[in-house]
Each structure stands twice: as C-alpha cells, then as structure tokens.
C-alpha cells in the first residue's frame, strides 16, 4: 500500500476546557475521495484547520505524504472553507491574482492559469468586475477556481455544494471528479449524504470529538447490511408466508390483487438460495433486491445509537 497523502495519528486538540478532538486518527489514501462526516460541532473543522496548519494539535502527529506537516506543505493543499468569502470591494481578477500568489504561484503563472479557468467557466467578462457585483453562486465559482488553481495534491472542500444551483453544482462536481482523475486527492466535509454516496471512496465519521467509524464506503455498507431484502411477486400472500416459515422474518407486506410487495429479513444462516427454493413452487418472482443501508441511515444509526 502506498504512503497516505494525509495521516493523523492520535490527534487531540483542546480549547480551554473544551476538547475539540480526542485521539483522532485518520488515513487518506492518495487519489481517493474521502468523506469527513459528523454532526455540527463534532470537530470536523478543527481537524481541517490542523491539516491546513491554521492551528496545531496539542497531542499527536500529522503527516503529509509521509512527512511531518510543515509550512511548505500549504502550497500543496487547497482549501475551500464552509465559511468562505472574498474582499467585496476588490476586482475579481485582481483578487484571484492576490490569493494565487499567496499560495506561492508567481505572477505570470497565476495569470495564465486564471485565464484558462476563466475561459473554462466562461466568465472572462468578470475579470474587472467588483466582487460585490457578483451573485452568491458566481462568487462561489470564483472561490472554487482560487482553491484549485495552484493544482494542489490535496484538496479540502467544506460543504462545497451549498449556494450552487443544480446546474452549477453539477459543473463543480464534474470538475472535482476531473481533478481526481488528474491525480488529486479530495477530502469532503459534508452533511449531504447523497454526496458521500455518490462520490466518496472512504469516510471517517466523527462525533463528539471522537472518530466513531471509518473505512471504505463499500466495506461500511457491507458491515451495516442487515440481511434485508425487498421482493415483488405474483401469487398468494398467505401461501407465501406459510412457505417462509422460520427461514425469514416478514417486516412489511403490501398486496394489490395478485401483486404482492414484501420486505423481509433472512434469519440465521439462511441464504437467498434457501429462500428461493422454498418460495419458487408457490409464486412467480418479479424482482428481488437487497435493501442496502444508505449512508444517511448509517450516519444516524451511528451518531444516535439509543434511538435504534
């Protein structure tokens, strides 16, 4: 396995009496899309600030590409904070140049790259506009460009899709995927589980300053599967329930004339094949699917176990 692009080992961060992070360890593999999940106030922003070297951990270590985190790394990281903004009175182009140069690009390269991005997003006309003339979505586009302009190896997006209309959200999503194809690693901090479902390879879930879950999305889903299936068939509901007997528990049923829909959970060591063998003689199967827990379910189940 290659060296992770970012690794946190047992990081603890305390503000006064408040523990923001408690022994948190994460690994972000190169080239992956990593989801940093957790309810508000869980400690996500504290962790992101440590990655960006805005603050330093009180205990534990952080590594970038295998090396202990140091100031030179900031030019290899791009960060789009959730609370983001621009100088309102400054012109768009001038402001982009300023922020790009702060990230270590020289004047000429910055200008060239900005021109390319402005063309790509078809916003060349904004160069001399003042930021206060832009709409929120327009300003977000500019911020996105500034974040990715210096082609960082690691990109951190904190709720990147808020404020975008669906068209622009798609545009940004495609750009993010393109960046990944070109070798960048991406960390998402988000509440939007559909984003996680759609984009993330791995996640870490932080709650109350502690990491409570992490791993590949596929593995986590497998881990959280409950042997629950949804099935449609034509036949007699009574005959069907009799045939199930103790092999499966019926969670939900619906019948319209001859057409039945059921949700069931396999019991014990029963397999789908056992089930099929039992019911095939008495009904005509139309569809059969495993009910896979959504990330949203997993999130809620993990964060609030008592409700379960």
């Amino acid at each position, binding site marked *: 396995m290659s060296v992770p692009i970012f690794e946190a080992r047992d990081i603890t961060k305390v503000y006064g009496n408040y523990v923001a992070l408690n022994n948190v360890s994460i690994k972000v593999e190169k080239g992956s899309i990593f989801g940093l999940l957790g309810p508000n106030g869980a400690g996500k922003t504290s962790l992101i600030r440590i990655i960006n070297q805005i603050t330093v951990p009180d205990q534990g270590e952080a590594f970038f590409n295998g090396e202990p985190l140091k100031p030179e790394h900031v030019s290899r990281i791009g960060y789009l*904070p959730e609370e983001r903004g621009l*100088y309102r009175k400054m012109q768009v182009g001038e402001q982009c140049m300023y922020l790009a*140069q702060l990230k270590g690009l020289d004047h000429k390269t910055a200008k060239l790259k900005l021109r390319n991005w402005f063309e790509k997003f078809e916003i060349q006309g904004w160069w001399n506009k003042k930021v206060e003339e832009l709409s929120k979505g327009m300003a977000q586009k500019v911020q996105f460009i500034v974040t990715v302009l210096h082609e960082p190896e690691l990109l951190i997006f904190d709720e990147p899709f808020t404020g975008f209309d669906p068209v622009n959200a798609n545009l940004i999503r495609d750009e993010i995927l393109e960046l990944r194809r070109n070798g960048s690693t991406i960390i998402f901090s988000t509440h939007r589980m559909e984003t996680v479902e759609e984009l993330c390879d791995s996640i870490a879930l932080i709650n109350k300053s502690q990491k409570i879950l992490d791993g590949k999305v596929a593995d986590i889903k497998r881990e959280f599967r409950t042997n629950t299936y949804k099935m449609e068939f034509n036949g007699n509901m009574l005959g069907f329930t009799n045939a199930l007997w103790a092999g499966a528990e019926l969670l939900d049923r619906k019948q319209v004339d001859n057409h039945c829909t059921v949700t069931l959970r396999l019991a014990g060591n029963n397999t789908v094949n056992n089930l099929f063998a039992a019911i095939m003689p008495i009904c005509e199967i139309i569809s059969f699917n495993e009910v896979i827990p959504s990330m949203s379910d997993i999130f809620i189940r993990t964060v609030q176990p008592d409700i379960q």
Partner: protein
Amino acid sequence: MGKVGLIIRREYLTRVRKKSFLLMTILGPLIMAAIMIVPVWMASVNVSVKKVLVLDEAGFIEGLLQENDDVKFFYTRTPLKKSLSTLDADGYFALVHVPRFQENDINHLQRQIKLYSAKQVSLSMKLFVRNQIEKQIERLKLQSQGVDQDLVDNVKKSVNVPLEIIPLDGEKGSGVEMNTALGMIGGILIYFFIFLFGAQVMRGVIEEKTNRIVEVIISSVKPFQLMMGKILGIALVGLTQFLLWVILTGTIYTVFMGTVVKEKLSSDKMEALMKQSPDGTAVADYDELKQTQQMVNEVSRINWGLMIPCFIFYFLGGYLLYGAMFAAIGGAVDSEADTQQFMLPVSAPLILSFVMAQTVLNDPNGSLAVWLSIIPFTSPIIMMVRLPFGVHYSEVLLSMGMLILGFILTTWAAAKIYRTGILMYGKRPTWKEMLRWLRY
C-alpha cells in the same frame, strides 16, 4: 516578493487608490494652508469702502481724521436732521456728530459725540472711528497743556521691546510662542494619525472576518503574517499621506511666501521705509513688517531636520503600539458595533496624553512631562509636544527605546488574541476570555 510583502502591497494599494485618500491628501494641506493664509489674505482684501459722514459743529476734527482702507471720512456742514434724513440715500454708512463746543469743557464735549448708523456697524469699525476721534481729543488736550503732538507720537512709536530669548547653550532657539504652537500641532497630528490609521486597521480586520475571507487567507499564511502585513501596509499609507502633506504644504507655503510676503519684506522696500522714517506712519509699518519677518525667521530656524524624523518615528512607534491592539480588538469582535467596550480602555492613555499636553506645555521639563514622555503609551504625543523646547538626547533615546519595547510587547500579545479571535464567530468575548487567549 514574500507573502507579507504581498499582503502589505494589497493593503497599501487598495487604500491609496481610494478616492477618499486622494481627497484627504489634497484637502489636508489646503485646510492647513487656509488656516495660515486666509486671515492674512482677508486682511489684505478690500472689502467695500465704508463712507462715514462727519458733522463737526465744534470744528476741531474737521479734515483731521485719519482714514484707512475700509473707512473714508467725508465732512459736511448740513444740519444734523437734514443730514440724517438723506444719510442712507446718499450712500453713507454712518454719521459722526460732534455738537457745538460749550463752556470750553472738553470732557463734556467728548461725552456728547454720537455715531448715527444707517447700516449695522461692526465692532472693528466702531473701534476705528472711536480711536480716530480719541486721538483728536487727546491732541486737543495736549495742545491745551502746551505739549507738541508730533513729539508724543514719535516717542510712542519708537517704544517696542521684542524681548528675544537667548538660550545659554549657544544654539539660537526659536521663540516660546512658536515652540508652543509647534508642540501642540505635533501632538495633535500624532493623536489623529494614530486614531485615524489605528481605526483603519481595526476596520480592515473586521472586514476580513465578516467577509469570511480570513479563513481562506490563513490557510496560505500565518495569522501573524496577515496581521503584520495589514498593520505595515496601513502604516505606509499613513506615511505616504504625511509626506504628501509635507510636500504640498511646503510648496503652498513657499509659493505664498515667495509672492505675497516677500514683496512686502523685500529689502528695497525696507530701506525705503527706513528713509521715510522721520514721518511717524512709516515707522509703524516698519515694525509690523519686522514682526512678520521675525516669524518667518523663526519658522526657518526650527530644526526641521530633527522634528520631521522624530515625528515619523513617534508616529510609526505609536501607531504600531496602538495598531496592534486595534487589530486584536478587530479580531475578537464580529462587528464594529461590538468594539465600543474594548476601544475605550485601549485608547484611554492616548486621550489622557492629549489632555495632559496643555500641562506639559506649561512645564515642558517638569517631572510629569519627563515621565509621560518615557512611558510608551503616552510618549508619542507627549514627546512631540516637548521636542520643540529642546529635550536632552539621552531622554529621547530612552523614550524611543521604551517605545520600541512597548510595541514589540503589544504586538506579541495582540497576535495571540488576534489568532484565536479571527476564527471565532457569533459571540462577543469578554475581557477574561481574551486574557485566556494569551495563554493558548
């Protein structure tokens, strides 16, 4: 260019390019020049001549009253009632009536003299007319005692003691009046510059925080770099403004002196006046000119080579000291409205030194003045007030050293508060919390 350099550049350029900067740069010297020039100019401009009719029934001032640029006297014999009825229509401003001489009593007569006015009479005009009449009565009284009027005039005009102060250390010092004015102006300028540009630092920090751009920037640079970049950038704006003011004011002053005053002071004219001196009026003019010349000499005698660098040092030092604290306040709050409770304690020493300036002027080398000019929180203003009176170089050096130490200390503390504050949104910290941030 380093990152701090980039920040300084942005802070500087965005402010210098503002229209308000240009406006202040032009208006500043114009206002200062106006304060110096307008009174002189006003005096020289001929406001419409006021004609005053004189009805002298006693016959002792007719044709004798001296006129000036504003007031001209005309004499009449027409009876009082008739004169008054046509006074306004004939274009006269007022009428002086001296009644018939009775019982040879001058004291009685002078109480009977009246000034009838057709239009509102200004104080200066009343004083001028009264002065002229009094001179004639004086002459009359002297005459009755057998004294020659011209002799008295000459004696009076030749008495004028300038009382020049010559310090014992050999250097020719400037006059007390000039020192006081200079000290006061220096102190006021420092006071306003610190407040003006310190507030700009604070507003800039609040702007970055409320815009939420601060988190983007501090993912590229350290908070300390951002804070120092801002403070230094605005310091350069202040210096630019000050230097432009010095140059512009200097130019206006030089041009004005070159055209208006020089003409008055040219040595030819002086000599001409000297030759005329036997007749009394010219001597008066000559004295007046000499005073103006003395003032001009005093201005040029001031040690500008010391004053201007010291001003720049104390402006920078004071500004850095307070600017860092203003930055910390800006970082700790969410909006300008929340700054009030922190502003007052922080600016109290500044206001105190401004208030104490008058006391210091009265005793520029007293122990209060010395201490206030060494304590870094008050020294920028107080030292500027004291400097024109001459301060021993060891005191200046001590004060400068303390100021440097002071702003290093406040910048260090401010950076800690700033660093924590800029990432906190939504709540106004208390003093206690801010002190705790110092330990983070």
